[in-house]
């Protein structure tokens, strides 16, 4: 029982309790099903807060470890190993936080096969939690791959018209990356004799210095891991699955996809690439910065060209995550902590945007920007919320986006690893471009003369449930924008430890 | 050139040409007959190699039973005339020839040139024709090779059951 009562075990696997309950419910009892899912995720969120309470911010190491030998035969050394540290605590909280919100957003949006939907959603939460908490590469890989399955069904079953294409594309793209990672994981496992990350970290320097793993191999391993993560992030030029997946996914799916799943990629870089392959990281940093910069500009430019608002937000994600990557591979305290914070920010603001788009889509069933116009007059509350989220996304001072992007740019500008301030400089243009496309979108949809839809539809403003859905997100946008210190405090020791291990 | 070698060469010529005959006959019955000829020559080789028991089994089983069954089936089915059909895969035939030629040349060369088989097989002496040799062989068969022998018996049983299952048409509508 001690095993089950570990806070992290509970946190990861509690949604399964909900799944079990759901399995024995009649699929006609839709409201009851929604409530069960909601309560489950809320309890999970509660557990995450309990975890936060036990978390010691000043400790840079892994905490709240739940570690048991799992498959320990024939030299496998696979552990059941969950732990949290400064690098992951925020992402864990974000996951636990966004899931109930997403479920709330589906209250009226999903009417078809509700039971299946909720089951998949809860399974997805298990997977995501596992990815952020697992400290054993085998476990990590299982969770990492596992998240694909429920997401695949979420897109494929409840998505838009081209959902099958999108779902398969999503699945294959992501899997394509992770299989190379699998080979790399196995290679590391064979060389170090363990799959447990801390043990591996202890063993690797010896292997590197003794030449058992030569620099080329290290680079190859780095690339193999990076392939998996870069596709997930997605980094330019591996992003092409993202717009499809986002556009076709149901709202809740998009929220989770943008809010959490993409962060798995960046988290992977942070947790594994940088820690496991320090030399390769330093060598690769300029290249990744280059790709990140291209991504920033490209994402912003393409966003501007979109006529579908969801696609626009999707491409903006490419741009935003470019910032995250840039900050991370600045490999200094500012850059990395900014990157981590920006992950959260992106989750909050993009999540909010997708939620809002979903809400209006539910009424109009179109996402074409040009058919809207003058929404503000009809839906003032919606307009306000949308405005705040948009501004947050584009990085207006006082809101969360600004803090993240500013810190990142600061880090990138002075980064020794990247070696040139130009990347930061060019990326700054991305911020301006963000302002352009966001404001363009906002203006077209909310201001100006009433569009077709606005004219011909009886559009209702947000109801209480919908306000309740986005309100928590808004609170955090302001909180981080105005007083980010507690968040930085959570991150800082771990980041410092991470960076100190690098031979910079 | 000893007489044995001459016999060997003549017989091997017969064996090879009958194999070719089997391959290229237009008529399935001729193919079968060529194969019988081949089996009989091989049986003579067995005699030359001091294996009369095997030689006789060869003739009894291969020539006497198996090939008769073949002939029987060919005649029963009226499948003897083999009209050359347009090749479904035109590349297959030349490819097969090339592969076969390579295989033959290679195996002959390798075995001949590089293996260390320099034993010369002498003609079997009277000992191979003694009952003692036959008895020894039987003892070995039933002692050392008891298990394979039993397996073979099961195998034959299975083949029998299988053949009956395959050819036994169930009587339909018979009370």
């Amino acid at each position, binding site marked *: 029982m001690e095993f089950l009562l570990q806070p992290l075990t509970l946190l990861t696997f509690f949604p399964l309790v909900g799944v079990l309950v759901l399995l024995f419910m009649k699929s006609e009892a839709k409201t009851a099903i929604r409530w069960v899912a909601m309560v489950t995720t809320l309890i999970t969120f509660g557990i995450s807060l309990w975890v936060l309470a036990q978390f010691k911010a000043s400790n840079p190491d892994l905490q709240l470890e739940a570690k048991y030998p799992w498959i320990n035969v024939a030299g496998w050394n696979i552990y059941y190993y969950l732990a949290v540290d400064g690098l992951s605590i925020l992402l864990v909280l974000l996951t636990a936080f966004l899931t109930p919100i997403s479920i709330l957003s589906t209250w009226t949006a999903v009417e078809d096969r509700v039971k299946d939907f909720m089951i998949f959603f809860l399974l997805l939460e298990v997977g995501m939690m596992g990815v952020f908490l697992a400290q054993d590469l085998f476990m990590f890989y299982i969770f990492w791959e596992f998240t694909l399955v429920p997401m695949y069904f979420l897109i494929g079953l409840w998505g838009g018209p081209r959902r099958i294409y999108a779902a398969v594309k999503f699945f294959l793209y992501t899997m394509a990356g992770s299989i190379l990672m699998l080979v790399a994981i196995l290679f590391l496992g064979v060389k170090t004799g363990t799959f447990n990350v801390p043990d591996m970290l202890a063993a690797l320097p010896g292997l590197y210095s003794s030449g058992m793993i030569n620099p080329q191999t290290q680079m190859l391993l780095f690339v193999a891991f990076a392939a998996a993560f870069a596709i997930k992030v997605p980094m330019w030029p591996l992003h092409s699955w993202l717009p499809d997946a986002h556009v076709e996914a149901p709202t809740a799916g998009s929220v989770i996809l943008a809010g959490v799943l993409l962060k798995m990629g960046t988290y992977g870089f942070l947790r594994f690439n940088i820690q496991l392959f320090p030399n390769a990281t330093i060598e690769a940093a300029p290249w990744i910065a280059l790709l990140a910069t291209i991504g920033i500009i490209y994402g912003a430019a393409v966003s501007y060209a979109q006529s579908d608002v969801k696609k626009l937000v999707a491409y903006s994600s490419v741009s935003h995550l470019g910032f995250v990557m840039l900050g991370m591979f600045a490999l200094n305290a500012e850059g990395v902590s900014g990157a981590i914070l920006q992950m959260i920010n992106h989750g909050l603001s993009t999540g909010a945007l997708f939620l809002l788009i979903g809400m209006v889509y539910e009424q109009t069933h179109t996402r074409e920007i040009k058919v809207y116009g003058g929404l503000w007059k009809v839906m003032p509350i919606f307009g306000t919320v949308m405005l705040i989220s948009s501004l947050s996304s584009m990085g207006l001072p006082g809101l969360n986006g600004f803090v993240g992007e500013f810190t990142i740019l600061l880090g990138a500008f002075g980064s020794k690893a990247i070696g040139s301030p130009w990347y930061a400089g060019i990326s700054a243009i991305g911020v301006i471009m963000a302002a352009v496309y966001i404001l363009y979108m906002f203006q077209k949809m909310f201001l100006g003369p009433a569009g077709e839809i606005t004219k011909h539809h009886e559009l209702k403003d947000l109801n209480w449930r919908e306000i309740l859905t986005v309100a928590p997100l808004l609170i955090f946008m302001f909180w981080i924008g105005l007083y980010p210190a507690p968040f930085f405090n959570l991150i800082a020791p771990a980041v410092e430890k991470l960076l100190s291990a690098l031979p910079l | 050139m000893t007489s044995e070698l001459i016999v060997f060469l003549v017989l091997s010529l017969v064996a090879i040409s009958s194999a070719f005959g089997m391959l290229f006959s237009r*008529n399935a*019955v*001729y193919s079968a*007959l060529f194969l*019988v000829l081949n089996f009989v020559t091989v049986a003579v080789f067995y005699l030359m190699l001091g294996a*009369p*028991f095997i030689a*006789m*089994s060869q*003739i*009894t089983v291969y*020539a*006497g*039973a198996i090939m*008769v*069954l073949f*002939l*029987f089936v060919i*005649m*029963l089915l009226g499948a*003897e005339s083999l009209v050359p059909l347009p090749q479904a895969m035109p590349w297959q035939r030349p490819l097969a020839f090339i592969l076969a030629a390579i295989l033959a040349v290679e195996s002959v060369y390798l075995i001949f040139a590089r293996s260390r088989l320099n034993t010369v097989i002498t003609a079997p002496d009277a000992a191979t*024709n*003694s*009952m003692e*040799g*036959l008895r020894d062989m039987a003892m070995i068969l039933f002692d050392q090779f008891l298990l394979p022998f039993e397996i073979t018996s099961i195998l034959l049983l299975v083949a029998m059951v299988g053949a009956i299952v395959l050819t036994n048409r169930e009587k339909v509508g018979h009370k």
Partner: protein
Amino acid sequence: MDWTFWLEWVIKGFVLCLILLTGFAYLTLYERRALARMQVRVGPNRAGYQGLLQPIADAVKLIFKEELTPARVYKVVFVLAPVLTVVPSLVLAAVVPLGTSFNLFGRVITLYVADLNVGVLYLTSIASIAVYGITLAGWSSNNKYAMLGGIRASAQMISYELSLGLCFAIAIVMGNSMNLVDIVNAQSGMWFAVIQPVGALIFLIVTLAEVNRAPFDMPEAEQELTAGFHSEYSGMKFALFFMAEYQKMIVICMIAATLFFGGYREFWFLKDFAGGILSVDRFWFLGPIYLLLKVIVLLFFMIWIRATWPRIRYDRLMSFGWKVLLPLSLVVLFITAAGILLAQELNNQIYFYSIPVLSIISAMVAVALIYRDLRRKSNGRI
């Protein structure tokens, strides 16, 4: 291997062929006369004394008769088939011992062509080859009747070969050797036909089927197939088939005598008669004579059967082979082997006597089963 060896070999082979050829000729006469007697007529008695020149007359007629080769036959095989039929019937006799040995010019001359340790196997293998001639004759004639005859022949011969092989095995087990000379010598105390009468009976029945004699002469059943596989043959080629059949009869009877009736040996109870004056051990020339007598008696049985029995229906023929003879011969083989083994292991001859008793019982059971089956099929009319 000096040249005298080869010479001896050639001479013996030649003599054997000669014996078989004349034997064949006079067997036809023998059969015709015997059949005639049974049918209360005279038979050929004009050519020579009691028709003794009749075979020669027949031969001359056949040789000079015109040979027809139908247009659409498969020529090569058509010509080959009679040869393939005759050769095995000649070759078969090579391992059959005709007697003991005698001294001539300081050499020991044995009265058999080849002394093979796998003699019995040699017999089975040649017997199995013999199918080809008939089958191919049927096929190459390109004639439905002939073909059916050929197919019937091959099916029948293959089916009965199994029982034949098992009968050989019975003899092998009893003689404790595959060598025919050994088998003959093993019968100096007692004929195997006495120890294993059922085995001998099965052997005789099976040989009838093997040589396509009545009542198992389905391949040439006139009523159904005109003349079966040799419908299209005429002249000398036809004569060859004819010849092969009768030679086979002779050889098969020789083999039957060798395996079950003491071969060239005298009656077992005559061995010590009058100081062994009738024993082949004393006088080598008695061997061939004994054998000849036995063969004549066995041949007479074959002719007798032909005169007495109607032809069996084909499906009955096959099911008789598979469902009666094969199981029965298996059982008999088992009984024989077990009896011998028990007698050996427990050193008690009483088990030896169980062989004939149990075999006869099982044969009677088989007969009873056939009877019941036939009765059921004919709705109690038998």
